[in-house]
């Protein structure tokens, strides 16, 4: 029955092939093929999950070798899959949330004439993402890693007729490339150091490796994770990626792909456990990003960009947890899953709002929508409560444990990380309340669209609301279910290991402080956005606000640090190329060309000249032969 594992990937891959190669005759039915492929994959995932449940803990991880992929001397790469407790969590998240979002897209993309292609790309994404989490070696993981990058690029730029979308796609692709280089060098290092890139062999060989080597590999893996998961300093693409259709933002840029970095770090726990310096870097990146994203999220008026900032921030939590080592891995993944539910739900809700508001994304033009979009309001509201960590909902369980784990790191470090996480929780509550208030409460601030008509907000069709409801249920229940008997912790411990750490604060104290922070965040937000009317035109704001609106100047920094020196270097190289290299090349070619046209005249077409040249040639040949003997 392990043969189901390749089928998990094959189903969406076949769907993608069918949809992308099938041509126009599939235009009318294509989206259902896409949904079916995702659903079939989810069904396989469920079957495999229950099979795994039925096996004793020691036999839960299985390996399936499909074929020998590359075999050159000592370089052996197999197309082989490893399904263990960690991968199955991802498989269920990807295919489950993926299927829901496929269904949602049927409604959301109903009027797009390229809908078939959209579903083809979505299926392609599923296949690549599954390959990423199922690979049993880093090389195959890299294939999936690049595959999701490609799918992300194609989907961000799906509305390529918009210049902003095309630019955003390119930006995402290029920024990701920086991270990908890190991953590829890490894989090369693994091959030179361990002679293999299969997880089991690399992890078995890791303890013999020098600490410097492990730190290098760890940092390179972190670079890769930063690119894919939009962590500082490679965070700049995620906000722009919201140019893609909203289901894409929900699936790829919130629930699944952007969490691949967390998967990579957690999967490589054997390396990070042995490289404390690399882990420290991971923790710093996570802590910085969780504040960075939260601050950006506070200032954005575009609902999707505000949510994108939130995504960055939440992934920052996960990376922070993963960097804490065995005390955090499990909670990183747990938060990843719960976040998958509520963030996907929030994005789908945002999509539903946009659907009702003529694709308006500026929250300053929303207001008072709760009556017009009751289902969206309810599901979005539940997602909101979940993400801010309202007691009893998903986010409460997962985020609370991360904050505890941060304190449990111990020492000054623990205090700094714990307090950062707490501040983050407060800011999260602030910006999420801001989104809620600006969108669903207050006065109507609706603006006429291009044709001068005011929007008529209406609830989305069933095919869109149904996935939102399911995700809302998940946002409410998932965290609680995972925590019963520490089910999630026990499930993952065989893969990632787990230890409790020594927190200077008791668990109850941390929970209490967290709740206080959350309430403070809500309160401040209510004072600013709830009590008085939200101005339609944004106020000038403080320097920090202005910077945050521009994503804390990330593009200006990149421009100054990278683009300008890069352009200068390119210009210098072009100058050298044109003046130096081309000069030499053109000179040589002109010399040869001139020589050629001069010598060519010897070929005059007269047979007598040819005969003479042969005769002369013979004389020279004979003379030289004789000469060779005499000297």
């Amino acid at each position, binding site marked *: 029955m392990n043969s189901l594992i390749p089928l998990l990937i094959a189903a969406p891959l076949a769907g993608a092939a069918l949809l992308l190669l099938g041509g126009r005759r599939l235009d009318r039915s294509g989206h259902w093929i896409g949904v079916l492929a995702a659903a079939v994959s989810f069904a396989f995932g469920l079957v495999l999950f229950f099979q795994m449940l039925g096996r004793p803990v020691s036999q839960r991880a299985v390996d399936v070798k499909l074929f020998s992929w590359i075999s050159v001397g000592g370089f052996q790469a197999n197309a082989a899959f490893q399904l263990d407790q960690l991968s199955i969590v991802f498989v269920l998240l990807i295919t489950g949330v993926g299927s829901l979002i496929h269904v949602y897209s049927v409604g959301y993309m109903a009027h797009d004439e390229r809908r078939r292609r959209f579903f083809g790309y979505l299926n392609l994404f599923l296949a690549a993402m599954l390959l990423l989490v199922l690979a049993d070696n880093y090389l195959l993981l890299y294939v999936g890693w690049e595959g999701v990058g490609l799918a992300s690029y194609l989907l961000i730029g799906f509305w390529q007729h918009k210049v902003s979308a095309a630019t955003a796609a390119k930006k995402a692709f290029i920024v990701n490339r920086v991270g990908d280089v890190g991953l590829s060098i890490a894989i090369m290092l693994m091959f030179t150091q361990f002679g293999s890139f299969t997880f089991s062999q690399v992890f078995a060989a890791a303890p013999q490796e020098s600490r410097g080597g492990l730190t290098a590999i760890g940092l390179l893996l972190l670079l890769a994770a930063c690119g894919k998961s939009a962590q500082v300093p490679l965070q700049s693409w995620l906000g722009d990626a919201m140019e893609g259709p909203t289901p894409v933002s929900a699936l790829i840029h919130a629930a699944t792909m952007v969490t691949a970095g967390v998967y990579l770090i957690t999967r490589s726990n054997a390396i990070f456990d042995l490289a404390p310096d690399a882990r420290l870097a991971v923790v710093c990146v996570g802590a910085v990003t969780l504040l960075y994203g939260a601050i950006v999220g506070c200032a954005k008026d575009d609902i999707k960009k505000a949510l994108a900032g939130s995504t960055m921030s939440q992934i920052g939590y996960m990376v922070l947890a993963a960097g804490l080592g065995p005390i955090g891995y499990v909670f990183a993944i747990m938060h990843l899953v719960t976040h998958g539910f509520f963030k996907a739900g929030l994005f789908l809700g945002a999509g539903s709002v946009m659907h009702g508001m003529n694709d308006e994304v500026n929250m300053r033009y929303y207001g008072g929508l709760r009556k017009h979009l009751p289902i969206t309001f309810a599901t979005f509201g539940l997602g909101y409560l979940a993400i801010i960590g309202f007691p009893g909902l998903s986010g409460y369980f997962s985020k609370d444990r991360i904050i505890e784990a941060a304190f449990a790191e111990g020492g000054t470090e623990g205090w700094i990380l714990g307090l950062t996480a707490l501040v983050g929780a407060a800011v999260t509550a602030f910006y999420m309340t801001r989104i809620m208030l600006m969108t669903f409460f207050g006065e109507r601030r609706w603006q006429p669209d291009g044709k001068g008509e005011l929007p008529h907000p209406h609830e989305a069709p069933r095919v869109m609301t149904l996935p939102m409801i399911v995700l809302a249920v998940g946002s409410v229940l998932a965290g609680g279910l995972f925590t019963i008997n520490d089910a999630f912790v026990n499930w993952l411990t065989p893969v990632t290991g787990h230890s409790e750490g020594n927190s200077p604060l008791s668990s109850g104290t941390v929970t209490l402080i967290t709740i206080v922070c959350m309430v403070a965040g809500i309160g401040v937000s209510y004072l600013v956005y709830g009590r008085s009317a939200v101005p339609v035109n944004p106020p000038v704001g403080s320097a920090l606000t202005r910077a945050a609106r521009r994503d804390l100047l990330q593009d200006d920094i990149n421009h100054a640090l990278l683009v300008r020196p890069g352009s200068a270097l390119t210009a210098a190289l072009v100058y050298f190329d044109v003046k130096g290299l081309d000069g030499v090349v053109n000179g040589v*070619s002109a010399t*040869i*060309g001139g*020589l*050629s*046209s001069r*010598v*060519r005249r*010897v*070929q005059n*077409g007269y*047979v007598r*000249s*040819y*005969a003479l*040249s*042969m005769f*002369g*040639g*013979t004389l*020279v*040949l*004979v003379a*030289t*032969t*004789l000469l*060779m*003997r005499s000297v």
Partner: protein
Amino acid sequence: MSLMTLAASGNTPSIPAPQIEYGQLSPMLIVFGTAVVGILLEAFLPRRLRHPAQVGVALLGLAGAFAAVLVLAIQGYGGTRSGLLAMGSVALDGPALFLQGVIILASVLAVLSYAERGLDPRIDGVPQDPFTAQAAATPGGEQEQLATRAGFATTEVYPLTLFAVGGMLLFPAANDLLTMFVALEVFSLPLYLLCALARRRRLLSQEAAVKYFLLGSFSSAFFLFGSALLYGYSGSFRLPEIADAISGTAPITPALANTTQNDALLLIGLAMLAVGLLFKVAAVPFHAWTPDVYQGAPTPVTGFMAAATKVAAFGALLRVFYVAFPGVRWDWRPVMWGVAILTMVAGAVLAVTQQDVKRLLAYSSIAHAGFLLTGVIATNRQGIAAVLFYLLAYALVTLGAFAAVTLVRDSRGEATHLSSWAGLGRRSPLLAAVFALFLLSFAGIPLTAGFTGKFAVFQAAAAGGAIPLVIVGVLSSAVAAFFYIRVIVLMFFSDPQPNGPAVVIPSTATATVISVAVAATLVLGLAPQYFLDLASKASMFVR
């Protein structure tokens, strides 16, 4: 004196019947026999049946000859066994058998492209092949028009080609200089004729034939003169016996006591013999005929000449230098170094400014002769194997390239001027891609047959201590790559001319030639090991 006495006495002398190994000689015998059958068909068959019959018989004969080569190879003559046939005048060994196989393969492809009748528009419903209706008619005259109308066809080309093939099969196998000379003439004379038979541009074609004939005769004279001098030196035409004379192990014939061991005779004879052979491989400075003849001859014949002649001539060159003259290699190697360098450089440099595809390919063939010479100069087994492999790759790719040239046509026949090839990649991406593949192979770009061949000869030459030669070779390859890639750029990145040529869809015959050549280019580039092993096994000359 003794001869005259015998004749006068009236006694019937008992001449011992020579021993002829018909089985081992069968590849050549089958080809010659088929050629004779072809002549008879020409005499007795009604005109409309001649074309299919001649093509069929020629292909059948070549297939039979190839089967004979295979049988001999299975018997071990491709490597482990060898023998001297026909009283020692013909050698059967690895190089001979390998090259015979290559020549027959190339001839099959050549005959297929001869047989193409789908390119020229039909006249009065009669399909037109690439050859003139009546060779004797004045070009452009009334007689020619009548002959064309009447549907005449020069189907003699098939037996002529088979005679040439027979001579080519014998040439690399000839173990004495007289047999070699006979073989040279047997394959040259039909080629002179074939060159004159183009349907279009007949004056150019006839001019080419006359030039080729005059210069070819001139070079044959050198060959013959050289043979005579060597006989004077060694008292024998047999290559092994010449070698013995050089090493001083041969008994001295009293009649030649004055000339034997006179090194001047040896060296001058060697040089003149080399001239005759270098003319056939188109090495500089004996190359002047090549562009004119390649351009003027009917393109299928050009392909045949370029491929098969070069294979046969390099076979003979190898045998002469490796069997007869290994003892004086310190004398001939420096001279051949010079020839090789001149050939590579001149071929590459002169090709740069060519404006005609066929002339371009002619200069390319000159440059390739230079690359092949580096393999000859290696003077080791590796060098022989490399040259054998190179010849296989070169012959097949060349036939494919010339077959592709026949497809690009305008109202005046083939459009060979490069300017009319501009933008061909947009009109006919498939043909342009195929031709580009051939050019890349000529240029020696990796993953094509040409790369493997070039790598093999350069490696052998380097192992043989000729590193400067390899450097010159690589540099000329770079120059050569320029003009090959120029054509590719022209085809794919230039705008087509408004009334440029069209690409004609060929019949299966030419399509087969091109497909086989494409397949060979890729197989010999991607998975050459089997053929490299084959050449390596076959790389031992019999003495």
